[in-house]
């Protein structure tokens, strides 16, 4: 592969998969709020 093609491949992988990694990290830092699910409410509410 040519150096420029390799460079672009690396940049593409880093930006897109890096973006995915950041998105996953953000989600992991904010776990699901199990305490406030609609199932928890009493029927008369």
């Amino acid at each position, binding site marked *: *592969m*040519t150096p*420029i*093609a*390799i460079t*672009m*491949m690396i*940049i*593409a*992988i880093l*930006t*897109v*998969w890096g*973006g*995915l990694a*950041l*998105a*996953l990290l*953000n*989600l992991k*830092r*904010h776990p*699901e*709020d199990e305490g*406030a*699910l*609609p199932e928890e*409410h009493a029927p008369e*509410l």
Partner: protein
Amino acid sequence: MSGPSSSRSAAPAKRETFSTRRLFILSAIGSAVGLGNIWRFPYIAYDNGGGAFLIPYLVALLTAGIPLLFLDYAVGHKFRGSAPLAYRRLHRVAEPLGWWQVLVCFVIAAYYAVIIAWSLMYTIFSFTEAWGDDAEGYFFGTFLNVAEAPGIGFNFVPSVFFPLLLIWTAVIIIMVAGIRKGISRANSVLLPLLVVMFLLLVVQSLFLPGAAEGLNAFFTPDWAALADPSVWAAAYGHIFFSLSVGYGIMVTYSSYLKRRTDLTGSGMVVAFSNSGFEILAGIGVFAALGFMAQAAGTGVNDVVTQGIGLAFVAFPTIVSQAPFGAVMGVLFFGSLVFAGVTSLISVLEVIVAAVQDKLGWARIKASIVVSGLVAAVSLALFPTATGLYLLDTSDAFVNSFGITLGALVTVVVLAWFLRKLPLLSAHLNRISTIKMRRAWMVLVAGVVPLALIYMVSSEFISKISTTYEGYPEWFVGLFGWGMAGGLVVLALVLTFIPWSGRSKAHHDPEYQSMVDEESEETAR
């Protein structure tokens, strides 16, 4: 709540939910990752600047794709209904938008399943190499038995009809099982399987001789392309189709989310997973094309192709020539089947959910009747000698004047006429980790409609200046223009049919309690 409906003794069944956020994300990725990621993206990127395409692609993703995805999430999650019900709850006049999206999904589901059926057969053919040394002649002649001229006939092709029947049977079982037992479960099995299979395919492709040449062709940037507006249009167009936004799927899926779910945080994972898969597909497909070019003694530009030509002509040729070709064929066509099924069920869910809401039917009844009806249309029209012409025409017109035009009208109505973006933005911010402020509204009300206007008008000009593909005028008029226009008329008709007395549009204590609760929260 007051009114006669509140006196009913039995409360309607609760709306099903994805049991976890993870299952929703898996299902939304399963929906977004479809045939287009595998057979469309690699070619589009190659054809529009190679490595340089990354820039317009990322810009389009961030300025149009993700904002539109959030718009769909906000509508579905806030108004907690199928597309027609959610838009109706947003505003009465918006209901036809939902029906338009439902009808677009009907058309897509009918032909999309056919391509999955072909892929299923080609998974088997990978062992037998049924195409011999003429993959193209085999596919169009022997396998599809394509007729000389477009038309409508009932000259059935059994080798397509029966696999299609099998696909529909499997899909109907998933649909009947519902959100938790059907859709969640199917996605949590098929999506990881798809990723593993595709990774193996990429690794195998990278070890083929000539792979490096293919990757050179794919990644070498043509910076001059960045000055070409058509390249930017291609990026916006691709992002838009790739993310499955604007035709009800994400509205429907997000309506099954629990109340306090991080919408934007989840959406980012979905959007970047979809793009990550596309990059992977580009690497795998171009490595394989590099091998094909080397084997044929030509340049990569001579073998490069997309869509049906890539999957059913180029790949069979590669399977015949590559070491362990059968393995490669199974991985590739199996990936198409899995990617296709997880997308097909999301398209069908839009229709099933709408019928459930409108008629107040139970899940099982609605899913059997709806999926059965789509399956019947699909089986009657497409596995025939003329099916390919119909598939090609309906795909082209439903994409341009169903999905794209529909999304444009939806965005303009929501942003400019009903002015609901502040309300939807507040909903996204109330529960999400990534906050959407004014920038989101500017993108949705400005950049997105401009990109869509450009896409719709260029499609309109190209389709009106010459008859599509040189097919007979009556054929394109009926199944292209007529179908696309018919969807709009039918959407209005469906809006005027009253909602059933048992429908959640009239009596939905679950939704009502949420509305009350949220207004209390705001008042506090």
